[in-house]
């Protein structure tokens, strides 16, 4: 190596500076541009083809219908970001509703029953997380096992009954009020917004969030850079469990009755929302805004197709096709953006 060259590090790159990102792109991130486009298209189509879709009442209804699966999808997002998957989330939530409702019916004041239920969900998340991190089992298998166990446990616990709730705290999220005397809102919407903003903040503004993405992107690299990958993973499952607990509360707000048979497709529905929202099943890419949009897309499809007078079997056909189309749109938009 005879040549030593010490020309100073003057930056010499052909400097095409990136054009300022649009406010929208900054808010939702690039990953969410696709589902946003899909949502906008769906809304426009339904607004044009039906008379009953595009009005404030139906808007409120859609948001209400979004709440439970949307909340499940928030927890699911955390887990999928780490390249995991949670098949048990709906089962955890359902067990939560059962415990809350049963305790609230008889023994405990509503608030305390709620607390116990949410803690139970969090604890189950901790168990799944421990199995994933300590035994290094695939999340698919762990949560499949937990799903099987919890579904049966819920049914044994309920013993063929379902439990109605009436207490103020337990149905608090279902309570309606009117904004500007016009827009029907429920307390659940408020809680959802707090949860969405909180999780978004954690994922994007804190180093915990960076660690979550890093673990999902390349777990070994994350480990080598000194990230406590186990603790990060475990915390993700625990936090997701907590979110499912909140989903249980939301579910009771919407249906003041805890039924062991409810939400049997909640796991797939929430995964669908997450994936439509642009989060990669291989981890490390995506986020909360996309999931919210993804869950809204699915809700809008069901709602709008019904308004359009399409029967549920044909709706199912249409939904299947539209889910594929929504993700295809996402691909195209993202390729454009890149």
């Amino acid at each position: 190596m005879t040549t030593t060259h010490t020309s100073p590090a003057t930056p010499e790159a052909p400097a095409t500076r990136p054009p300022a990102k649009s406010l929208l792109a900054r808010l939702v991130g690039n990953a969410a541009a696709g589902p946003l486009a899909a949502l906008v298209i769906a809304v426009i189509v339904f607004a044009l083809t039906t008379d009953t879709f595009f009005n404030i009442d139906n808007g409120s209804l859609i948001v209400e219908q979004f709440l439970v699966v949307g909340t499940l999808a928030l927890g699911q997002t955390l887990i999928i970001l780490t390249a995991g998957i949670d098949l048990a989330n709906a089962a955890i939530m359902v067990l939560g509703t059962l415990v809350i409702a049963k305790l609230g019916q008889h023994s405990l004041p509503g608030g305390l029953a709620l607390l116990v239920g949410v803690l139970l969900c969090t604890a189950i998340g901790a168990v799944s997380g421990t199995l994933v991190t300590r035994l290094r089992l695939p999340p698919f298998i762990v949560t499949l096992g937990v799903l099987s166990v919890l579904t049966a446990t819920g049914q044994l616990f309920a013993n063929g009954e379902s439990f109605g709730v009436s207490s103020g705290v337990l149905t608090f999220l279902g309570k309606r009020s009117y904004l500007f005397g016009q827009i029907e809102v429920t307390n659940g919407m408020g809680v959802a917004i707090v949860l969405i903003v909180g999780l978004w903040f954690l994922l994007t503004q804190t180093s915990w969030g960076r660690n979550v993405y890093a673990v999902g992107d390349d777990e070994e690299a994350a480990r080598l850079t000194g990230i406590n990958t186990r603790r990060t993973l475990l915390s993700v499952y625990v936090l997701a469990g907590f979110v499912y607990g909140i989903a249980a509360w939301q579910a009771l707000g919407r249906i003041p009755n805890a039924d062991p048979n409810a939400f049997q497709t909640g796991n797939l529905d929430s995964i669908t929302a997450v994936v439509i929202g642009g989060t990669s099943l291989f981890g490390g890419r995506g986020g909360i805004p996309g999931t919210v949009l993804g869950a809204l897309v699915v809700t809008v499809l069901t709602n709008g197709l019904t308004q359009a007078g399409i029967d549920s079997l044909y709706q199912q056909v249409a939904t299947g096709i539209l889910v594929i189309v929504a993700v295809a749109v996402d691909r195209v938009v993202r390729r454009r953006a890149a």
Partner: protein
Amino acid sequence: MNQPRSDAASAQAPAPHTADVVMSASGLVKRYGNVVAISESDFEIHAGEVLAVVGDNGAGKSSLIKALTGALVPDAGTIELDGRQIHFHGPRDARAAGIETVYQTLAVAPQMDIATNLFLGRPLRREGFLGSGLRMLDHKKMRTQAAEQLDRLGIATIQDITQLVGTLSGGQRQAVAVARAAMFGTRLIIMDEPTAALGVRESRQVLDLITRIRDRGVPVVLISHDMPQVFEIADRIHVHRLGRRVAVVSPRTCTMTEVVGLMTGALQMGADGTLLESTTQHMPDEKATSHRPPESPE
């Protein structure tokens, strides 16, 4: 950088007959969003030569050879093989044309063993009906040949030929990729930093291998940051800078310092093939803060 097209500049390097050109490209462009990886670059390799491609990190060398082998589709520009224009739709087409490549990322399958990786997409079938009728693979022969091939590269420390490539050491893994290209290339072999992770002895073997390949009549494109290596083995040197070819020089008429000067922009090649101190080292449209972050937060 008001500079003449570099075809003129190649007068500096010995100019073989154009009939000898094996592969050439002109006006190649590749952009990724705002990033320009290839910026109107030209390229030419002649029969029976070792052409070294040198340039700074990020100059666009890997992107250039990816464009040549169909691994990426350029936004603009034409590529010719043996004088006829071609459009590779993927690395598969290049391979079918007899072009083998060692990519910088190696392109190995980490969960497969060494022999399988060597013969990926180029299976050895059994003899007789088992091979032609049932299309059965000859696992044993592939293993034996793989072991021989690595021996020849001097990779003597592989303890278990059935080891998965993902568990190999960095140098061992690179040797697998080099061995693969050497085994199958018939028309042109392209190697993107093939000795970066190799030891002293192993690097030497690869250089010997490249010489042997050239002597066999197959031209070799060698991307390398190792100037002594380049000057030892190359017949011509293609200097790449800021996404384009800025000069083609001969290692016999040019010093290492000059080549490094060309790479970094301290020297420029004039239209007549002479080297000049660069007066406009900075490009006109350049901003001093080019790779500072945009001001806006997040």
